[in-house]
């Protein structure tokens, strides 16, 4: 048996999930090691992509359009690597955060199936296969959402499930129209297709389905409650990684399908702007820490779509890079932030923002981690979030699209405002009765989120190599 690393990135987590499910007692060991092994497969794949630009495998030896091919280029490997790295650190965080044996037992198989699904999305080149993959992701993600078992989590999980099914069905109907028009389902077929009514309908259906899954305003209604009520490691995975899968398919499709016209691009940017403003207002009003963090995800998704639309239709050839950087930055920083929020909640005992400063326990390191993650999410230098925002504004300025610059700046100020609500609660001491021990509440569990937050900051210094890596294999060139 010898297999290419691409297939392994799918099979390693799959076998890991199976093993973790049938051997529940060993799940906490199998889980992290499976993620680590997946990471190793991604590293092997990255080496191949560095050497060859893009790698393709036709599964079963059947070349598309009959068969299904996996394809890895710079962008997909970047997503795989981000997923594996964030996933590994969240896994380490989960070892401590999941105290309940039952939660532990189910977390690992669900999370590994989720990983399988996401890796499948990043390597997929066939739109029906992508439909199946987003369903794998959806079911595993809903399972993770309700892991805490509270009524609020279950309600949110059910809403999430409805949205997921509906999004997937819209996507599936789109797939039907694509087949109806061009008789094939692979990306190459899409690129070669002539524009037509059925294809426009297909594009519209698939894009709306994906926007629902990725929770772009005003289709975000399901996200805040789902992300805020899950247990911390699940929230980190859902917010940091899961919404990115649909976003990634959106990026790919938007560039492969017949070019979207200027109005569509503007519409997407406008929805992004709506997300930034509305999400910002809600984050300012949020009462609970995790709810605030969840609303900030709505904002960041909006920002990513603004980056996509920053320079109009002509700019799409470059704009996807800004969006990709923001996707990576948000994945890392948001996972760190949710884990840190979970740690704070664990130590303090609640996460009501207004009362955080009444606590004599100040989990310093978790708070510091939260602040670092906030720096990247606000987009302050030299974080990766800053690089993403820089690219966004640079492209918009160069193209003369001042409105996107203005929205981004307003969004930035709002994010300062809502994150400083939290930071102020961390640093206020005059409402505490008992003596405050600042170095209380450290735990080894802080290591994972801190590492994530520090990478979100320092990766900004390595933005040039990251940018040249995601361009490998011309993800958005003429041929897939």
């Amino acid at each position: 048996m010898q297999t290419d690393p691409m297939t392994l990135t799918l099979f390693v987590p799959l076998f890991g999930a199976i093993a973790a499910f049938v051997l529940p007692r060993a799940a906490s060991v199998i889980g992290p090691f499976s993620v680590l092994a997946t990471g190793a497969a991604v590293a092997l794949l990255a080496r191949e992509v560095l050497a060859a630009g893009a790698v393709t495998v036709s599964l079963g030896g059947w070349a598309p359009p009959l068969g299904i091919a996996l394809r890895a280029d710079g962008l997909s490997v970047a997503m795989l690597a981000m997923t594996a790295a964030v996933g590994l650190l969240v896994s380490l965080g989960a070892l401590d955060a999941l105290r309940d044996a039952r939660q532990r037992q189910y977390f690992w198989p669900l999370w590994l199936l989720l990983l399988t699904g996401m890796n499948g999305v990043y390597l997929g080149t066939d739109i029906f296969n992508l439909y199946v993959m987003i369903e794998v992701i959806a079911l595993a993600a809903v399972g993770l959402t309700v892991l805490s078992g509270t009524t609020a989590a279950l309600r949110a999980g059910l809403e999430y499930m409805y949205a997921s099914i509906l999004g997937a069905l819209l996507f599936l109907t789109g797939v039907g129209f694509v087949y109806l028009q061009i008789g094939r389902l692979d990306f190459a077929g899409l690129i070669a297709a002539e524009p037509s009514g059925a294809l426009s309908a297909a594009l519209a259906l698939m894009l709306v389905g994906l926007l629902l899954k990725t929770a772009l305003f005003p289709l975000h209604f399901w996200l805040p409650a789902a992300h805020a009520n899950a247990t911390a490691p699940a929230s980190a995975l859902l917010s940091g990684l899961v919404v990115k899968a649909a976003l990634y398919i959106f990026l790919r499709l938007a560039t492969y399908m017949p070019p979207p016209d200027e109005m569509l691009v503007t519409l997407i940017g406008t929805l992004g702007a709506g997300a930034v403003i509305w999400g910002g207002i809600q984050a300012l009003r949020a009462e609970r820490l995790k709810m605030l963090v969840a609303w900030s995800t709505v904002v960041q998704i909006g920002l990513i779509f603004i980056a996509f639309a920053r320079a109009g239709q002509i700019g799409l050839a470059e704009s996807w890079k800004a969006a990709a950087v923001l996707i990576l930055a948000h994945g890392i920083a948001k996972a760190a932030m949710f884990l840190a929020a979970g740690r704070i909640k664990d130590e303090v005992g609640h996460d009501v923002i207004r009362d955080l400063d009444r606590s004599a326990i100040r989990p310093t390191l978790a708070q510091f981690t939260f602040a670092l993650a906030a720096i990247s999410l606000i987009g302050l230098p030299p974080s990766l979030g800053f690089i993403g925002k820089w690219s966004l504004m640079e492209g918009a300025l160069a193209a003369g699209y001042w409105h996107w610059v203005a929205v981004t700046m307003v969004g930035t100020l709002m994010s300062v405002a809502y994150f400083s609500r939290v930071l102020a609660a961390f640093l206020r001491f005059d409402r505490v009765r008992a003596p405050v021990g600042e170095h209380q509440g450290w735990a080894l569990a802080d290591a994972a989120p801190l590492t994530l937050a520090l990478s979100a900051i320092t990766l900004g210094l390595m933005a040039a190599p990251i940018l040249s890596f995601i361009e490998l294999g011309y993800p958005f060139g003429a041929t897939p």
Partner: protein
Amino acid sequence: MTPELIYGLTGIAVFGAGLAGSLGAQDRLRRVLALKLASVGACFLLIVAAWREPPAAPDPVPHALVITGIVVMVSATAVALALIRRLHTLEAEDDAD
């Protein structure tokens, strides 16, 4: 009038009804039913697309895709229904307290 066109439009009408139901229904179970309708509508579309004027055999690929779609949908339905049952139990217990 070919069966293709008739059932194509049938499928789209069912999809539309399912869409409206899933957006508008209040009852949790009814929303699941509506989504299920929409999924049948989507399947109609693929099967219609695979149809060829007899005696030509239909394209088998969309058929395989629909079978996959049906299994995926029953999985999603089962999870949604489990959530509904569990929520009902929890809410009933909350009320009892």
